[in-house]
């Protein structure tokens, strides 16, 4: 429950989400036309997509399997029998003027996920259902034209519509849920999750329970249509909460508690705008599509799909913290992308010490990946760098056994990027970065550093306040004199012995 200022009533926020995920199948939901983003308008179509006379839909099995994977990841009941229904409405981007969807027998029934929250805790978000349908095309409105153009490339793309219960209680939770769902879909390989290309679209349903003058007032539910960024989800929810609250405060006596209206989000203005009142709600005239037969799903099929569901980001983060002893932040960073986490796990399984490996991933590897991205639109992942799990493992091992210092490891890593075939140990050798543990040589570097820094020696010996700092300074000076090749442990021993002498 959120608390506002003393003068205002207390209220609870209820947000349920409807999410449309485009499934990254090779072909479309009900025909063999290619399923892909872009291309010339109306180039990714065939007679079925165009809704020409006489065409018939045929189910894309892969889309059903991908939907089952998401359903299983969300702990949903997979239906033993599912069917297809026609949802009728007239719009020029819908060639048949009906959409094939699933009305009362969705492929995936009730489920839930344990959503990690920003404070380190988590909450259960219940899933109401998830069903398959086909996407519509797009209308293009060009400036100066009195007519609109229709592009049907997107039409017929497999869509998974996921509906949650109203368990989200803040705009931040709504965003976190969206982000987690995107990670899950990317992990499962069912969606690329590229928000700019509309791979995922969010529709939060929001209302408030206001506790005022000893009564509970439920505001009317509003649905915000077609949000395609996490920022928009959070902002639109925030705006809508304040709008509903203000509306109540302005007219507490006429607050409607029934019905549902639809609003659009204007990202530039930062506000939601009314699109459709309840009274104008469509009668979609759902009925079973006679062109498609009901789909019977054998338990064996479900189990085969279940066995293919990979370890999901939530479980993986938990394992990294519990088994690898990572901080929550480290685990989160490393599991953000499945390919990165897979690479990490492979390197770890080759015997790499996890602490050194984590430092390599989050240090030089993250930095190099970040720098490799040429512009804002492209992302380069750690797993996209040419460094293999074997190289990571050997490099981490090298640091662990004292063969090279952490500083040198960065230089070796940069060398590996440019020479993908190189062996880390040989590279360290070649670069002259292997640690030198020779007693005499180390003593010589210590003497050299001491000779150059009399003030630090004086501080160490005479100023207790500066004792530690000057020791650190001198240690650094020795390492510098050795060009990073000295063994820090040996340096410490010799240095302290010399200073005490």
């Amino acid at each position, binding site marked *: 429950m959120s608390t506002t200022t003393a003068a205002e009533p207390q209220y609870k926020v209820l947000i349920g989400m409807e999410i449309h995920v485009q499934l990254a199948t090779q072909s479309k939901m009900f025909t063999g036309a290619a399923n892909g983003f872009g291309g010339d308008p109306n180039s990714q179509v065939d007679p079925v997509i165009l809704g020409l006379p006489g*065409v018939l839909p045929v189910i894309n099995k892969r889309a059903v399997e991908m939907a089952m994977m998401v359903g299983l990841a969300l702990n949903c009941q997979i239906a033993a029998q599912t069917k297809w229904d026609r949802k009728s409405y007239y719009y020029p981007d819908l060639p048949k003027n009906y959409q094939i969807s699933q009305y009362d027998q969705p492929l995936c029934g009730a489920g839930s996920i344990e959503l990690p929250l920003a404070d380190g805790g988590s909450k259960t978000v219940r899933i109401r259902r998830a069903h398959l349908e086909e996407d519509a095309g797009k209308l293009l409105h060009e400036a100066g034209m009195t007519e609109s153009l229709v592009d049907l490339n997107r039409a017929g793309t497999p869509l998974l519509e996921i509906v949650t219960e109203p368990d989200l209680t803040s705009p931040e939770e709504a965003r976190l849920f969206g982000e987690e769902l995107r990670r899950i879909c990317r992990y499962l390989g069912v969606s690329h999750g590229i928000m700019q290309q509309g791979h995922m679209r969010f529709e939060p349903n929001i209302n408030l329970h206001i506790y005022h003058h000893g009564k509970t007032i439920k505001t009317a539910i509003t649905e915000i249509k077609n949000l395609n960024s996490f920022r928009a989800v959070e902002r639109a929810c925030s705006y809508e909460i304040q709008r509903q609250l203000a509306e109540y405060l302005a007219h507490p006596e006429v607050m409607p508690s029934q019905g549902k209206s639809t609003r659009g989000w204007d990202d530039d203005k930062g506000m939601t705008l009314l699109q459709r009142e309840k009274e104008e709600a469509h009668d979609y005239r759902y009925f079973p599509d006679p062109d498609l*037969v009901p789909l019977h799903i054998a338990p064996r099929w479900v189990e085969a799909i279940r066995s293919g569901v990979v370890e999901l980001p939530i479980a993986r983060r938990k394992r990294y913290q519990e088994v690898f002893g990572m901080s929550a932040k480290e685990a989160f960073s490393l599991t953000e992308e499945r390919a990165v986490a897979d690479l990490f796990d492979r390197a770890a399984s080759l015997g790499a010490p996890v602490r050194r490996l984590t430092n390599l991933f989050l240090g030089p590897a993250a930095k190099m990946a970040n720098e490799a991205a040429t512009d804002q639109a492209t992302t380069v992942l750690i797993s996209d760098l040419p460094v293999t799990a074997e190289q990571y493992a050997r490099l981490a091992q090298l640091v662990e056994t004292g063969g090279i210092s952490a500083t040198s490891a960065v230089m070796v890593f940069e060398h590996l990027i440019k020479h993908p075939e190189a062996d880390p140990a040989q590279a360290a050798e070649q670069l002259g970065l292997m640690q030198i543990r020779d007693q005499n040589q180390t003593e010589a570097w210590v003497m050299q550093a001491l000779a150059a820094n009399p003030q630090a020696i004086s501080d160490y010996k005479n100023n207790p306040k500066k004792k530690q700092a000057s020791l650190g300074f001198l240690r650094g000076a020795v390492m510098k004199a050795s060009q990073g090749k000295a063994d820090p442990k040996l340096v410490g021993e010799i240095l302290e012995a010399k200073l005490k002498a």
Partner: protein
Amino acid sequence: MLNELTALEIHNKIAAGEITATTAAQDCLSAITRADPHLHAYNAVFADRAMRQAEAVDQAHTAGQPRGLLAGVPIAIKDNLCTTFGATTCSSKMLKNFHSPYDATVVKKLEQAGAVILGKTNLDEFAMGSSTENSAFGPTRNPWNTQCVPGGSSGGSAAATAARLCAASLGSDTGGSIRQPASLCGIVGLKPTYGLVSRYGLVAFASSLDQIGPMTRTVGDAALLLQVIAGHDPWDSTSWPEPVPDYLSDLDKPLENVRIGLPAEFSGEGIEPEVSAAIAKAVDFYHRQGAKVVPVNLPHTKYGIAAYYVIAPAEASSNLARYDGVHYGHRTARPENLFDLYAASRAEGFGPEVQRRIMLGTYALSSGYYDAYYLRALRVRQLIKRDFDQAFEKCDFIACPTSPTVAFELGAKSGDPLQMYLCDVFTVTCNIAGIPGMNIPCGFSQTGLPIGLQILGPTFSEQRMLRLARMYEKHHDWHTRKPVLPQA
């Protein structure tokens, strides 16, 4: 003239080198030129294309290449089957200029079998009707009496086949649209089991009821065409995945110990006495051939028409939603806005019967009426299916009239939709149950109009049903009678 030969005769004579495909096609095209101005069986004739196809068949024959089952057989197809050649109009102003970029599966199969496609035949607009009077391009006339309707909706195919303007044809049957015109024109018409023939490329009227089937002058030709067009199609989820049986080999072998059911509900009031008498005679023939005739009950038959006129329009209202003037088809000239574009394009493009059924169906599916109409009709559908299941425990086939009357005059029923709907009273339950049904000629009225016997059988009983029909045909000559045509 070779246009009088059956498909099997043409096939055999070409194989024997007695005739050429070119002459067969030429004779059909000449017959069309002479008679079709009086009948209007065809919406379009592809004379040049047909001749090229026939020449290709003859060349392949000369070169000794393998022949398809329909090599050189001149065929007409109903104008609701999509073809990459010519328009696919559904006899509607809406699709008057629609050219399909793909061929229906059955069209591909016909051509792969070597058929020569002469043209596309007239129908009630979008196959909605029982007289072919609902065509936007004018009615087709019955070759036995041009004052009369040929039945419908496949009236063009029926008239063309009866008048020898093709060797055989394809129709489609949603509530009787193959069998009823076959009956009124005195030919054989077979509506296969739902799912036996691919619907891909058949412009949908009511998807759960539509089936494509052969319309021929003989039972043998029906078997031949069915052999070619039946079979699983990966483009049609509702098509049956099993292999196609051989309909031809045992066709002449009579069925033994066959039990023929006579449903009490398919007799009595509303049936013309001459029709009843002809059916009784046909049943008696089977009895004399050793068949056992048993009474059966189909108690929910009386709800058939009502259920049909909810289910079929409901599906049609959805199937025809795509004709909106946006992507293809008729578009109104100067729409004021999007709603006007939709409303005016559809009001101008669809004829009154199509509009009536779209409204009926939209109403039946609307929120608040769905349960009372659509859902209730689906329950009746289950009861009708059960009726047939129970009847087929007592008999192998059911015999009854196809149409309660012989062909009626043009205009006799066109002002009264309910009277017109009753033409389908004996045919709709077959589609509702998804079972096969066929019409064979079984006599003529005093006025010289054909009477048809309907045979209904359990699902996928076509092989035996054809043999049963052939038993009758072998001992009767109705199918050899020819209508006298007016000549141009």
